[in-house]
């Protein structure tokens, strides 16, 4: 029979191998529905790879798409480490985006070195404030944060639609429900002229580095990990569990808010209600694929972004629905969960009589 023997420690190479293996397994499994749909399987995958990383332009597009995913991936990683199940990054992203246009589209006039930080801080605070509500409901009333954060996503999106059709509507937009554009001084500059890649990527990578240092090298980082591993033991040890949870909430919501700021101020220039095609939910996959490691979030986000960008380009070329990308993403999540068993247990076959 098969027995799972818990590992004392997991080698890093194994964790990385499991994540890479899960991504590959997901792509392989996707071949089944792809074949069933009658598309040329190998050709479709080649087109996807080309579309994601075939040339400099494709690569830049993938990195552009990875930028919000790094932010939402970090948001999920820091929260899940503390067992705070924040499934509301989608709503927090929109809160950040809303703050970005509220501050950056003409309310305040200031030079870029003032306005850009102001907009980023405002967006992070908006996202953080939004997540504090379910965290408070959890610590004060014992209400499950999963359901509250999930339902709040719908409320926030409706609120955004209301603002875009009402007070924040751009009168110059020919009746489209969109906000006024952010000022030039609030815009994140492009990294390379002629490409859509912008400074949001640099900020995202810096955020990942800072979060890595914070979690592994500081007292509060240690406390957060302790709360996640065993909240009861942490409480007995006298750790401030409630404060640690609130801090995690601020960080996670803030990072998701930055995703919104980066998309509006770096890429789109204004806010519409379809700003995010599910970046918040994809962030959960990014974080899980990265084994909740902030540094791992970067390659993991690039992989998921590549899947989306590649599937879009493949879909344009041979007409296979780009919902294929969502399939790969969902299968990656489930594969890495199963693969995670390998990192937590040694799986050995033992003869029945030996038991």
């Amino acid at each position: 029979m098969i027995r799972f023997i818990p590992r004392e420690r997991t080698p890093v190479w194994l964790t990385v191998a499991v994540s890479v293996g899960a991504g590959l397994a997901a792509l392989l499994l996707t071949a089944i529905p792809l074949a069933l749909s009658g598309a040329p399987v190998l050709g479709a995958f080649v087109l996807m790879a080309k579309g994601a990383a075939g040339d400099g332009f494709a690569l830049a597009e993938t990195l552009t798409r990875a930028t919000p995913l790094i932010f939402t991936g970090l948001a999920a990683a820091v929260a899940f480490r503390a067992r705070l199940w924040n499934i509301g990054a989608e709503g927090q992203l929109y809160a950040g985006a809303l703050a970005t246009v509220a501050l950056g589209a003409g309310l305040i006039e200031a030079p870029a070195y003032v306005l850009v930080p102001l907009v980023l801080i405002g967006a992070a605070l908006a996202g953080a404030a939004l997540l504090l509500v379910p965290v408070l409901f959890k610590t004060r009333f014992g209400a499950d944060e999963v359901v509250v954060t999930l339902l709040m996503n719908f409320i926030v999106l409706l609120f955004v639609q209301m603002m875009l059709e009402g007070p924040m509507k751009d009168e110059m937009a020919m009746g489209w429900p969109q906000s006024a554009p952010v000022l030039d001084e609030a815009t994140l500059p492009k990294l390379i002229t002629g490409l859509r890649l912008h400074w949001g990527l640099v900020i995202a990578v810096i955020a990942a580095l800072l979060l890595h240092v914070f979690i592994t090298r500081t007292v509060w980082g240690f406390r957060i990990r302790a709360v996640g591993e065993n909240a009861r033991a942490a409480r007995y040890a006298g750790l401030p569990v409630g404060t640690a949870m609130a801090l995690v909430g601020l960080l996670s919501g803030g990072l998701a808010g930055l995703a919104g700021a980066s998309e509006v101020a770096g890429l789109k220039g204004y806010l519409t209600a379809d700003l995010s095609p599910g970046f918040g939910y994809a962030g959960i996959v990014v974080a899980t694929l990265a084994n909740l490691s902030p540094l791992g979030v970067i390659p993991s986000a690039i992989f998921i972004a590549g899947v989306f960008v590649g599937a879009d380009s493949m879909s344009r070329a041979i007409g296979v629905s780009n919902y294929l990308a969502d399939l790969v993403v969902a299968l990656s999540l489930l594969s890495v969960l199963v693969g995670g068993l390998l990192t937590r247990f040694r799986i050995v076959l033992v003869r029945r009589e030996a038991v």
Partner: protein
Amino acid sequence: MLWSALDILTQANFWAATIRIATPLIFGVLGALLCERAGVLNLGIEGIFVAGAMSGWLAVYLGLPLWGGVLVAAATGALFGLLHGILTVPLGLSQHVTGIGVTLLATSVAYFGYRVAFPNVATPPRIEAFPPLDLPVLGDLPFIGPILAQQTAFTVLAFACVGALALILARTPLGLALRAVGDNPEAVEAQGLSVVGLRLGAVMAGSALMALGGAFLTLSAFNAFYFGMINGRGWVCIALTVFASWRPGKALLGALLFGALDAYQLRLQTITGGAVPSQIFLMLPYVFSIAALVLVARRADYPRALMKPYFKGQR
């Protein structure tokens, strides 16, 4: 205006809509509470709703009778339930993250499948949906009659499921075992029953019920499949399950309350005539769900082994 706001409550149409809106939620809450009673949180519900809506509808579109579509939806749900069950019960993976994964997978399979079947359609293809009930005596009753006559056989099935599940859980040895496996799996094992088997079965049956909730939308409430038609209904069911303290009777009550609120806000929108942004009304059901959850959370009597994986011979 206040008068017409109150007058809504006297309209048969309002009550008929309440039951119609409540029906998928009844299936969803029953499914969620069956899974959770056995100790497994099933966040796959949102995606299972989508997959049930799509597969049941597609089966009918391809020529199966309506009840055949209902069966196909239930089987689809059970299949995703099996996946969620295997990952969370014998393998003991995180029920939160696995559930989100099942939702993403079921949703993308349904959407991808729909796009493969109908690559370029401008208007969604339609089917002949469940007809309204033809009731000989009840239909002639004053006030009640018109409300009942607007419902379909699918809604009757939902009410029947409430009774059946309540009976099974409260009065049968199987129900006792199911409740025990979510409260005290060690005791179940000591009885010589299989914890894994019971939990897997409960998750599959619960997921089948969830899929029926989705199928109701495409086979009875509407006659086509739309992207985004589930729109958080599954998550609402998870909140209502806590509100219903995991009891089928209260689940029915919670779903009807939610249905009434949703039907009411729709009618209130037309009365206010645009003076209040429509989004405010559309937010109400979600706000209501969160409020219901927060209000009962402190007193909620969660199944004691909920979200606790069980491994044989290990405490």
